């Protein structure tokens, strides 16, 4: 009886998936057939998913850091990520680097763009916290959330406005709302074939390698920062119990500002990586990107840094799989379905502790 009750939701879920899945492109037998016929494609999609998932994971870290510390879903975070991509594009445009420049020029431009995006997004995030959230820290729960939705719209419109500044930034193109081409500074060199001389059916390009390596470095760095530095300790203390932390002499406002700075900086880095990897940015990308990142944060257990990383990679893999085997139109719906399922059956996420009271 206990066993039945435990697995009943799972069984119902599988039945529902098999019945209604095909509507959303989930045709089990067709997919199995496709994978059987061409297994290398699946591996290729895994690599793509890993790269995109790494970017999602970095954005998710921003959600999870902020949620961990002030229990607020920072709706505007996805849009800050978008601003990071725009900042990177602007700086690359200003340096005048194109796809035909020398490698060192490209590297300098990318580093400059990265630094600019990271600083810019960090500062923007701190400003947002200062003006939109700080006063509402003790207000009813809905208030900061609604404020965050408002900020999200403001930031999105800033992106739209920025995209229209073609007289100053020619790289923005003619139409302010249209997707903008991001220069391909890395190029697609097959690592397996050209570096190691291996002839494999799948390719791992330098782009994917860059994204995965940078993302891994950022995650390890963040982990070390939170675990071993003084400010990291203060962050953990504030997340655990704000009042007790205050009594211990921690400057709460400073810690929260620093958390937002950190989240914004990560979003800026993710913005640059997104641009370099996908070579197109648009002012609405914050909405989709933010949604996926939030789902990852929830999937991994919101407030949990490791969880956000794994959640991001899982969502990236799912999105790549859905794009290939279901239908790209349904990908967002699948992401949402995952989100709802996790929230209903395991609100603490895959590796989260109990935050039921907070949520």
């Amino acid at each position, binding site marked *: 009886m206990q066993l039945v009750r435990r697995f009943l939701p799972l069984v119902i879920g599988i039945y529902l998936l098999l019945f209604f899945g095909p509507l959303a492109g989930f045709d089990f037998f067709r997919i199995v057939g496709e994978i059987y016929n061409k297994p290398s494609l699946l591996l290729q999609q895994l690599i793509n998913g890993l790269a995109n998932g790494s970017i999602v994971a970095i954005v998710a870290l921003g959600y999870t850091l902020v949620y961990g510390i002030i229990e607020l879903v920072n709706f505007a975070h996805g849009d800050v990520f978008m601003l990071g991509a725009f900042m990177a594009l602007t700086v690359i445009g200003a340096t005048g680097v194109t796809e035909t420049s020398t490698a060192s020029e490209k590297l300098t431009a990318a580093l400059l763009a990265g630094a600019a995006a990271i600083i810019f997004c960090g500062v923007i995030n701190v400003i947002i916290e200062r003006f*939109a959230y700080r006063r509402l820290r003790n207000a*009813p729960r809905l*208030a900061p959330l609604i404020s965050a939705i*408002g900020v999200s719209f*403001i930031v999105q419109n800033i992106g739209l406005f920025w995209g229209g500044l073609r007289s100053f930034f020619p790289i923005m193109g003619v139409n302010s709302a249209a997707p903008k081409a991001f220069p391909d500074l890395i190029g697609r060199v097959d690592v397996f074939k050209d570096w190691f001389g291996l002839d494999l059916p799948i390719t791992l390009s330098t782009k994917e390698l860059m994204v995965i390596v940078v993302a891994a470095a950022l995650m390890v760095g963040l982990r070390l920062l939170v675990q071993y530095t003084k400010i990291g300790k203060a962050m953990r203390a504030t997340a655990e119990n704000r*009042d007790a932390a205050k009594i211990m002499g921690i400057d709460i406002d400073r810690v929260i500002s620093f958390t937002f700075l950190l989240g914004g900086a990560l979003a800026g880095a993710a913005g640059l990586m997104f641009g370099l990897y996908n070579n197109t940015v648009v002012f609405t990308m914050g909405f989709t990107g933010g949604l996926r990142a939030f789902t990852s944060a929830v999937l991994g257990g919101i407030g949990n840094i490791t969880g956000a990383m794994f959640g991001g990679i899982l969502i990236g893999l799912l999105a790549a799989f859905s794009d290939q085997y279901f239908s790209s139109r349904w990908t*967002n719906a699948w992401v949402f379905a995952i989100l*709802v399922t996790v929230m209903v059956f395991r*609100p603490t996420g895959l590796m989260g502790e109990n935050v039921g009271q907070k*949520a």
Partner: protein
Amino acid sequence: MVETFDKRDVISEVISLGATVLLLTVLSTAYLATRGQDKNGVAWMFAGSALAGLLSGIVLALFVLTTTLIDMRGVFINVKPSLISLLTLKQENLTLGIVYLIGTSTVTGLVGAVLYRTPGRVRQALLIAFLCVLTLGVMQELLRVTFSNIGFLAQLIKSLYEKNGLSVIGAAGIFIVTFTLTLVWSFAQSPVQARIAGLSSRGQFILKSSVFLLLFAALFFIPKALDNIYIGEVLANVGLFILMGLGLNIVVGFAGLLDLGYVAFFAIGAYTVGVLTSPERGGTLNFWEALPFAIAIAVLFGFILGIPVLKIRGDYLAIVTMGFGEIIRILVLSDFLRPWLGGAGGIVGIPKAEILGFQFAGPIEIYYIILIGIFIVVFLAIRLKDSRLGRAWMAIREDEDVAQAMGINLVWTKLIAFAIGASFAGISGAIFATKLSTIYPQSFKFDVSINVLALLILGGMGSIPGVIIGALMVVGLPELFREFEDFRFLVYGAALVVMMQLRPEGLWPETLHMRELHHEHAPPEPASTDSIPAN
């Protein structure tokens, strides 16, 4: 944006909307600067405000100087000669213009201090009179169109306005009339209120119902008397949003469940009517027969979407409901449902509503359907609010755990909130479908949910008159400022943030809610998750 402001005059040939906004900014800066200076004496106060005005003037002057001397068109895309001419108050000579600018700013700063020193009653009257002049100045076009059919009013308007704004005499007249009226009312207000409170309950009832009847009569006859399609169209749109706002008010305002996918129910109502009535889709019913189905299916979906999200609280709920809103839109767009719902092409040829051969074809006729709908829904909302169910919703809004401990069935109460909220949106969607005759998935984007939420926040969550005020502002005002269509969502976003910071209870708050909010603001309560608040 600044440039478009400058094209409009508040008072014809005297002051433009742009200049008004500019001076208002300086004025409020000076006013805020004065606010802290009370204790240092009057002289300090005036000096401080004049300094604030002077400084703002100098900053603006520096801006003018740099932009005219160095070509910065690339940086500030909005800097066009017209902005400079606006800033220098239309002086040809630059030096003279800058002197004017600084001088005017300083004087405006002083006015700020004077305003601060005037008694509250007079200040309020001045402010209201000024706002009246500003609004009427901006609404010129609308008023002209509106009253062109009524002889004496058209005459009055003609005498008030000149070609591009109010005439000087008209503005002065409006200012004096509103100023006097407000001042008189501020003295008469409390005696009148005391008299009303002194009436017997029967008398109060008669008074209330006569006011209500008067309002109803006005709402009923005015559009017909005006007989203007544009006004009818705007009123009908406002009405549809009032219906939706009242529904969301139950979910968000009463029960405290933040629903960002509310557009889904609007879409369900519209598509139900579309499928059941459009001959193109094989529909055979008429509007009135389809309406109950639209409501029923919206309620059904309210339940269906409500069940999985019941366990989810607060922030998560917002995102999950947003997801549902998007999923419904993706479903409508999908190939799978194309034979029934028409995919991206939508449903066309939805017939108009009809009663005994009278066709509700134009916006003014539709307006009457909406008006009746609003009256029914407002009545229901008021009754629900004070019912046992309404009190249960508010208990859940305030504290879910305590509510449950008091014996409220959380599951059922929340589901009912979702279902009733959905039914109101279903009505709105049904009328929307027959109003436009064609529906596309594009009409049911996330933006609609945000519009409804914004009007709720502006008006005041949980407040029924607030919904109406909010809908007028969110849907009606953009009609006045058509040239700012591009910045619409920027303004909504800013409005949400500013309202949350400065006036979280909304413009027309529900009394109970206001009391709670301000009580909570006063002593910053320590954030404790495990203890029950003492009160």
